[in-house]
């Protein structure tokens, strides 16, 4: 079977989960597409899962109320083994990329990380992924019968629910004791749409000039477009903008339909976080700035004049 580890919060499956269902269907491999739903009080999410999968396995236990890498890995590996899963799909977000290596070790399986494409050749599972800070596309082949795959968010379109619901089965798990205790949470909310969810991102860098100019230009344009605000590492380190807005840091990438880069020169590390955006508009004083290499539309000029004019014209 193809085992998909579902992600759920507040009774809803995540978008990544529905994308993985599409990825699993497109493989056309043997066995049912199976969603494993882990958590506490998850009946609603399990019922939703039944409209997407061929079968749903449910582990509804108080110990699973909060995500933990070792618990999730133990549960996934046990179910994969019992169900003789040949392909295990896990969302390529922070949690998934954290517990997937542990699953691969337990199953002695290949681990194809953060894939953007996946196909079954009839004898091997082959994935595409980005490497070298998204400057190279890599084709990698699993050499083992079982493969664990983390799927980059947005790699597939979200599946549509079926009219008939699949059967749900409760599963018994042998879980290890939790070794990490969550003692607190902090949220750096900006009141704006989150970077990861945004279809438009307006981002600024040092070239904007000052924190005040960032507010007047980048934030104002973002407000006009209903966009998320992004920032380069340089100005986050300088304390102009909160860490939550940083784009391009290793591990934090965005892929909106439109990315407007204001006063961003385009260090490789920043480009790796945004160069897969649908359309990139770059505004920079320096005509030789590397950002123009990845831009669809470039403007050489002073953002302090161009951005307010854009806000007026939109």
């Amino acid at each position, binding site marked *: 079977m193809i085992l998909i580890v579902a992600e759920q919060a507040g009774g809803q499956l995540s978008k990544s989960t529905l994308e993985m269902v599409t990825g699993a269907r497109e493989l056309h491999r043997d066995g049912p597409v199976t969603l494993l739903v882990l958590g506490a009080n998850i009946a609603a999410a399990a019922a939703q899962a039944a409209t997407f999968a061929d079968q749903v396995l449910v582990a509804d236990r108080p110990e699973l109320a909060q995500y933990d890498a070792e618990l999730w890995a133990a549960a996934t590996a046990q179910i994969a083994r019992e169900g003789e899963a040949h392909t295990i799909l896990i969302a390529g977000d*922070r949690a998934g990329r954290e517990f997937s290596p542990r699953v691969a070790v337990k199953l002695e399986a290949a681990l194809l990380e953060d894939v953007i494409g996946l196909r079954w050749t009839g004898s091997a599972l082959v994935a595409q992924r980005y490497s070298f800070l998204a400057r190279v596309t890599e084709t990698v082949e699993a050499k083992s019968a079982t493969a664990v795959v983390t799927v980059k968010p947005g790699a597939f379109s979200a599946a549509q629910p079926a009219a008939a619901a699949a059967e749900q089965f409760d599963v018994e798990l042998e879980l290890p004791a939790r070794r990490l205790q969550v003692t607190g949470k*902090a949220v750096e909310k900006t009141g704006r749409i989150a970077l990861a969810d945004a279809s438009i991102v307006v981002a600024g860098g040092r070239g904007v000039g000052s924190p005040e100019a960032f507010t007047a230009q980048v934030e104002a344009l973002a407000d006009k477009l209903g966009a998320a605000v992004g920032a380069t*590492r340089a100005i986050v380190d300088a304390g102009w903008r909160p860490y939550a807005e940083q784009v391009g840091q290793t591990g934090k990438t965005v892929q909106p339909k439109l990315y407007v880069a204001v006063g961003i020169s385009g260090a490789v590390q920043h480009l790796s976080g945004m160069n897969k955006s649908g359309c990139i508009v770059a505004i920079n004083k320096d005509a030789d700035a590397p950002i123009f290499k*990845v831009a669809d539309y470039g403007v050489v000029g002073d953002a302090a004049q161009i951005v307010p004019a854009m806000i007026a*014209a939109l």
Partner: protein
Amino acid sequence: MNILVCLKQVPKKDARLTLNEAGTWIREDVPYEVNEPDAYALEEALRQKEKHGGQVTVLTAGPPRAQQVLREALAKGADRAIHLQDDAFAAADPLRTARAIAAAIRDEAFDMVFTGLQSDDFGSAQVGVLLAQLLGWPSATIIIGIEKTEAGVRVKRELEAGEFQLLDMPVPCVLTIQSGINKLRYATLMGIKQAKNKPVRQVTLSEVESDAGQPLQQITRLYVPLKQKQTEMVTGTPAEIARKLAELLRDRVRVI
């Protein structure tokens, strides 16, 4: 606290990448540097040592050229180094690398292992967690703060979209460190001199090869896009530029 920091030597971020003839790996005649998140992992280990005592050991798995990152780390203040030295480590998959490291440190006693959260080449973000699983230790990823506690450490980790979590965890453990957790130091002249006399343990491939096992995955093809985009420059007065951009976004890109 005795801390092991795993470092990787990777192509410089702005290095021009070209492929080997088979198209299965990059040509290795490029300038190299230490993987950036690993540099922050080292800095964090040195700071922990300054606060709480203990030793910092640095380790790399790579060809002879990779010794450069160990020398730099020793010059910055690490106490000793371990070099798993073989050309085969340059493109080894994460599981084989983690198994080789686990075998190499079998007789060592570390309280914590730090790695960068991922490498700038493969970017798989696996070796740290794999090592934890192989050692039977707990782990936490994308760490942006570490405080020692009675029983272990309290760490701050980054989740999605501006959310952070505080975790109490026992030692020994593995932590993967986010770039920007601290400010990097430079090696002093004194440090560079002292580094020459610090011990570097060499580990050969044959010592760890049976533990590393067979590769479970293989890169069959790499592809480097020649020029990513055809850039259209928009010119005119600010008002003209603004009007043209608005039209393009509305009519051609259709995002607004």
